[in-house]
Each structure stands twice: as C-alpha cells, then as structure tokens.
C-alpha cells in the first residue's frame, strides 16, 4: 500500500506542478501551487516525518499561499503577456 500511495502522490504532484507552470492565468496557478504543497504534506506524513509535515502545512501551504495571493493582488494584470 505504501509504495502505491507514494507513487500516486508523486504522479498527482507532477501533474499539478506541470499545470501550475503552463497555466496562463496567474490566479489559477497560485491556487494550483497550494495543491503541490498539500500533496507534499501527504508525502511527508507517509515518510514518517510528522514535524516536517506540520511545518510544510502551516508554512509551505498556509503562509506562502498568502504571500502569493498578496503578490497576485498587487502585480495586476492577472494574465501573462
């Protein structure tokens, strides 16, 4: 089961990451980047490192999304040139 979870999460993560990068709408790509953080939390839990998982959850997902959203709000346009 463990191997399957790891494999599946990695595949999901890579797909999300690829979509994040090629996505033309900035707002979408910021939201998708949270998905990367969340799946990495899942992986950290699977790797028996709850401390890192908690840190990644509050910092990697919580605060950095806030920062990106703030950035998004000010760096106007929403679309890439």
């Amino acid at each position, binding site marked *: 089961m463990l191997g399957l979870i790891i494999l599946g999460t990695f595949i999901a993560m890579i797909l999300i990451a690829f979509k994040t990068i090629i996505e033309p709408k900035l707002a979408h790509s910021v939201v998708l980047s949270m998905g990367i953080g969340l799946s990495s939390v899942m992986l950290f839990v699977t790797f028996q490192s*709850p*401390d890192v998982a908690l840190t990644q959850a*509050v*910092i990697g997902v919580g605060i950095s999304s*806030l920062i990106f959203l*703030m950035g998004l709000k*000010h760096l106007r346009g929403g679309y890439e040139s």
Partner: protein
Amino acid sequence: MSLKRTIPMTTVSGFAVSAFFVVTILNILIKNMPSNIYRAGDELLKLNSSEGVANAVTTVVVYFRGFDTLGEIAVLFIASLGIGLVLKSTTKEKIESEESNFMLKTGAKLLSPIILIFGLYIMIYGHLSVGGGFQGGVIIASGVLLLLTSSNHFHISHRVVERLETFAGVSYVMIGLIGLIVMDSFLGNFLPHNISQMGLLLSGGIIPIIYIIVGIKVGSEMSVIVDNMLKRDIDD
C-alpha cells in the same frame, strides 16, 4: 496546426536544457543509491534520552543543532525587517475598506480563539509531541490573519509586538550565553533534565523554554509580516 507554431522556441529550448541537466543527475542518482552504513542521526537518537525530551526532532532542532535554529530565527528577523522596510506605507492610518461579509465575521469569531489556542498548544507541547515553536508561532499568526481580514477595527499594536519580539530574541541569545558560562558551551542545557521526567510538561531543561521563545519570536514576526502585507493592501 503544427507544433512549431503553437509552442515558442524559448519553451522548447528551455525544456531541452533543463531536461538534459535533470536526466544527467537522475542517471547518477539512480546508479548510486545511498547505503545506510553510518548516520549521525542514529547516534543522536541514542544520546537523546539523556536530554529527557520525548520528541527527538525537537532535541535536534533546539539543542544538538540549536545554533542553526538561532541562525534561522535571525533569517526570519531580517526578512521581517526587510519586508517592513520595503513595504513601509507612506500614509500611516488604515483606510476603511468595505465591510467583510457576515459569514467571514461569524466564522472568524468562532474560529480565531480555537486557532490561537491550538497554536499555543502546539508551541508548548513541542518537546512532547509533533510540532513546536515554528509551527505554533505560524499558526498563531494565521489566527491573527483571520482576525485582520474579518474586521476593520482589529489592529495589531506594533509596540507590543515589537516588545515581545525583542524580549524573545534577547532572551534566546542570553540563554545561550548563560549556557556558555555555566556549561562551557554555547546553548548548553544548564537546567536539570532528568530522564525520569520524560513525557512531563516540565522536562528537558532549557529545551521547552527555548522552543517557546522561538514560538513567541516566530509568531510576532509572522504577524508583523502578515500585517505589513495586508496594510499595503488597503493602502493603494
């Protein structure tokens, strides 16, 4: 429609360059998987019970590699200082923006005490279970964020936060220097830390104290960062 027209040349070459680089690394990594002969971590685990702390990661972060944590606090401190410097608004007062909606207000009223208490719990029980100063501090900051977004009347008193921050930073280095005098090593564990007390709230000597200090420092700095970013938001 051919592939050439839809995908620009920079994308293709960028992908080629990065793929070449990464595949080379991957090739080397796959051929040389690490073998687990000796790990410094295993020796630290053996030493860990003598510090009387149930969470080995906490011992490593706060005590065995405590110097790194001091540096990390310094990074966060400088970043918060820099964000304050860069985003310093020209007008001081907070301009009233439109009222946040009913759902957000009620949700914030219900959730923020729980979030703050959960943050405190994570911070104080850092040496016994998962979590610790960093995580607890950031959770507290996220509670503050919720309060800030939900209400226009909620302000962070920068003077109080600055005092907390100063207190935490100074006492961290001071504890380290006391350790230098008493135990002859910077950040030495000079308080009693008995193995028999393992699992109790008061155990582990200076380790829980330092982690709580770290929590105060991280919490106040993150709150200032969040506040600075939101303030700027209302500014323009």
